[in-house]
């Protein structure tokens, strides 16, 4: 009986120590993942800055005119078409609405 108790006690101590070691191991793992998260967030921010710089209207206009040879629409080349019952809103439309209006003008929207 005493032996069993002794062995059980030793096992308990082992379990306790193992648990402590495992907590430390997991702690390191969590730390590593958190660091990884910070690095990924940093990368995301860098890409966001790059994306914003690349989509700047000034740059797009430069690429459109100088590289692609596009020109701004001249007078009379833009025709806004509204669906029946659709009154122009007083508030500013969203970008999506603007795009739709331009698609309408080229006749590409068939709905």
């Amino acid at each position, binding site marked *: 009986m005493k032996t069993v108790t002794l062995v059980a006690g030793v096992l308990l101590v082992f379990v306790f120590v193992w648990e402590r070691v495992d907590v430390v191991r997991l702690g390191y793992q969590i730390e590593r993942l958190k660091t990884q998260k910070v690095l990924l967030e940093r990368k995301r*921010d860098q890409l966001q800055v790059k994306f914003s710089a690349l989509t*700047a209207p000034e740059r797009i*206009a430069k690429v459109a005119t100088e590289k692609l040879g596009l020109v701004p629409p001249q007078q009379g080349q833009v025709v806004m*078409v509204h669906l029946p019952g659709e009154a122009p809103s007083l508030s500013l*439309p969203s970008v999506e609405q*603007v795009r739709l209006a331009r698609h309408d003008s080229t006749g590409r929207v068939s709905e």
Partner: protein
Amino acid sequence: MTAGPSRGRRYVMLLLLLCGFSVILFRLVTLQVLQEAELTAKADRQHQKTVSFEGARGMVSDRHGKVLAMNVEVPSVFGVPTLLESPSTVARHLAPVLHIRRDELERKLRQDKSFVWLARKVEPEQGRRMEQLSLDGIGVMMEGQRFYPKGPLLAHVLGFSGMDGQGLEGLERRYDSHLLGEKRVTVLQRDALGRTVFPKGLAEQVPTPGHALTLTVDEVIQYIAEKELEEAVTHSRAKSGTIIVMEPQSGAILAMAVSPRFDPNVVAALTPDRWRNRALTDTYEPGSTMKMVVAAAALEEKVMTPDSMVFGEYGHMGIANTTIHDHDKLGWMTFSEVIQKSSNIGAVKTGMALGEQRLYHYLQAFGFGERTEIDLPGEVSGLLKAPKDWGGRSLASISMGQEVGVTPLQMVSAVATLANGGVMMKPYVVSEVRNQKGRLLKEVLPQVKRRAVSQDTARTMTTMLEGVVTNGTGTKAAIPGFRVAGKTGTAQKIDSRTGAYSSTQFVGSFVGYVPAESPRLAMIVVLDEPQGEAWGGAVAAPVFRRVGEQVLNYLGVSREDTVKIALAMKDH
């Protein structure tokens, strides 16, 4: 063979093992449990150094979420001089990587300090090379660097922040308390070999970023305004220029362009003169654009109707021992024609019909002499003297836009008031403030300042101002397919040497709104000292047309000749 000795040896072995394990266990339990706090604190004391730094500044984006300013973490290099054995050797290694003179680095590293910055906000590649060098007493820490990815776009409104992340100009300054990240003390720790220094628990200790701002500005409209303004300033060889585009119904600023531009990413070499937001810090005598306010007052007070007849004195009229001239020798004309032709004498007679007190009242009602209270720093209230301080000619001068100093923002707010049926809205630039998780902290709603004139007066004024563009001095502002209401202005500047009105220095401007029947945009174009032809109708009105046309196209606003088609929705 007996079991006795064998069992005895086994017991001895077991006892020895147990003793051994017990010692190990006792030590482990002592170190990891009983003395844990004490030992951790001791280790921390030996290896840690505390430094405070702040969380990333909040992001600034336009009304469609396009990023205009944000923080990116970049490496900064620091040294711990007390840990260095040979500062000269370390400086020799660092100099080629950091591109800093060796003697300068050595001087810093020889200081009797436990922490010293060696190079802040360096290139990521330099940071990587520093980490590879792995020098004793030298560390790399990430710090927030403010980036304005669109370069000069909206720079005068955005402003910029300093090296330590504090807002110095523009929105960065006005909303500094929102944009600032959380300030937190960070613990730097050396590893077991004492070679590298890094923030302990890096992720946990990253301070909370500041709040994000959403602006009323649309980056595309801003770009159009800046592009056209730059062209106009270059073409007219003006000293500077301003364009403000405002939504009349709300007071929301859609664009605020100032020329010359500057890049907020590179401000170190610039003078304050370059980054001053002239749209609200600089006053000018507006000249004829002020006549629309005088006219609105006269209509509201019923001292004039659009058809009232006014005699133009054939271009010359004496007032207080001076003579007032008109560009043309005008005779009898209607009140509408006074505005269309921008007659000084007609405006003076209108002002005199109103009288000092009433004119002053309406100038105040349209916001002159007071700040618009826009959420940007540095705004001035302009110059509007009280009638008791007016001289013999003041009533006449003010009626034609002299002896009064206004900002472009005040003037566009005044015209937006007419566009908005006589109700003045408070201009604003920031529409939302959100925390880093996207939760809305503050929403700015359109705010009415006051009603300046009745809706009927505003409507009549719109018709009269349309006449300016169709038959008057502002024909170059006409946008095909749209009804434009507006007023030209050409004001002589005061010559600083003589104190008299200059015959060569002018401010040319145009202020108006479109479509006149249901205004979507109120806009002002001001060009300071254009060379050659300086008339507002010649230099500023065409800019109004070009910006207006592009912006209306961009917003998808229908022209009067819009084709309406019926699509058979049921067929699909």
